[in-house]
């Protein structure tokens, strides 16, 4: 039976994790290495790390942090942030990254996605799509960390990226980001129904019930969250956490949840 993936997303700003609300006003959360270790120790399904200033600084994801996390974790690890060349992807994969996330450069040059898929394989290529609802009520894709409007509709863009060879779409609602007020389920559904490749829903998770809404109502193949796994309580105290299998099973059903209660391996090095 295939399981629904529940994926923490870490936003890296220089050397620390930041958590935004609606793509603004980041709050420093802590060390990315530490967070990755905690999630690895909790046996989570997968980890996504996005270097959110790499693009504007004209570089790729922070190599040192990426390789240290890759070295210490035994789960699939997806990395994004400023990726524009095949060589950057090659170096990331050699460092132990499994999949790369392309966002702004896919908008600037869609052919790059095809080139990357042809060299590295579709299952290595995730296209990250950030979406905001305009004042007209229509949804629009934004690039450059949510700063540049593209004029693209999310479903059409997702379909184009699928045609180019993307293996998966990471769909983030900018309006729900950091709010923990629930996913934008109608948006997720329109995009997921438009493509045959998996869609990861992101932006707005605040309770485990939201995961069920994204999957059953939104047809997402996987659910991702940032704030939900980094904060706790009404004052948003920083506390790295992940739902218990029993809570996930209650909302997703036992057969769609991967039970992680097999003995957890100790970390590969002392710290």
């Amino acid at each position, binding site marked *: 039976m295939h399981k629904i993936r529940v994926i923490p997303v870490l936003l890296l700003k220089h050397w620390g994790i930041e958590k935004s609300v609606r793509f603004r006003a980041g709050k420093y959360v802590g060390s990315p290495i530490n967070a990755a270790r905690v999630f690895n120790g909790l046996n989570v399904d997968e980890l996504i790390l996005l270097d959110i200033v790499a693009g504007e600084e004209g570089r790729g994801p922070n190599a040192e942090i990426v390789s240290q996390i890759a070295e210490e974790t035994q*789960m699939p690890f997806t990395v994004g942030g400023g990726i524009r060349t095949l060589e950057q992807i090659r170096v990331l994969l050699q460092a132990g990254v499994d999949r790369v996330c392309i966002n702004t450069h896919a908008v600037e040059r869609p052919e790059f996605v095809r080139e990357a898929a042809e060299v590295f394989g579709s*299952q290595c290529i995730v296209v990250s799509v950030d979406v905001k609802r305009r004042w007209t009520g229509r949804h629009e894709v934004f690039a450059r960390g949510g700063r540049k409007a593209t004029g693209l509709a999310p479903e059409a863009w997702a379909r184009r990226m699928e045609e180019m060879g993307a293996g998966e779409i990471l769909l983030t609602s900018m309006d729900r980001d950091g709010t923990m007020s629930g996913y934008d389920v109608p948006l997720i559904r329109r995009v997921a129904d438009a493509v045959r490749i998996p869609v990861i829903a992101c932006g707005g998770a605040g309770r485990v019930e939201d995961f069920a809404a994204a999957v059953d109502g939104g047809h997402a193949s*996987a659910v991702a969250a940032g704030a939900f796994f980094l904060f706790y309580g009404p004052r948003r105290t920083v506390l790295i956490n992940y739902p218990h299998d029993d809570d996930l099973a209650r909302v997703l059903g036992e057969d769609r949840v991967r039970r992680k209660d097999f003995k957890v391996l100790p970390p590969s090095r002392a710290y």
Partner: protein
Amino acid sequence: MVVILDYGAGNLASVVRGLRRAGVEAVVSSRHRDVAAAKGIVLPGVGFFDAAMERLRSGGLLGLLEERVLGARVPVLGICLGMQMFTEHSEEGDAAGLGWIRGRTMRFRFEGGVDAPKVPHLGWTAVRRCAEGPLFDALPPLPCFYFAHSYHIACTDAAVVAAEADYGIRFPAAVHWGNIYGTQFHPEKSHDNGARFLRNFVKAAGLA
């Protein structure tokens, strides 16, 4: 020393680390003398069938691999694409494989609109053993492993299939025949189940 064949693209560091945790030192190489001296060989999991086969061919490795694996019976582990290369043919690139396992590699094809399973098959899926054997020793009855693939194999000979998984259709998740071992999933990315699996492989293959 275990040699992990290098056919071009992808994440091999995790395989090296996974094997190290399982008690075996491995090196990434495509050099004849490394392959000839290897106590075990790994065909890793990323790339394309036709391109990988062409790399082996142009590297002059096909004959050497056949001699080591089929002749000298050196243990070999194929992961994902690596296992697919054991088959006789793949739709991916319409290319001939190594032919060490009778069967072929085919793309997932699903009808059914929005309810059809998504392709690639990405994520954790439960695996069901087909027979008792060393590979799934000390693992729970339906262990989950991480899959990332758009193609799957179909074996002519059911006896080589060590485990199956369901994703829209039933397909072989692992094969084992003598010194030949293969997994469609990525044990190096499957947390504790994967670590246990690699440890079982290393012990079954007499590598540690």
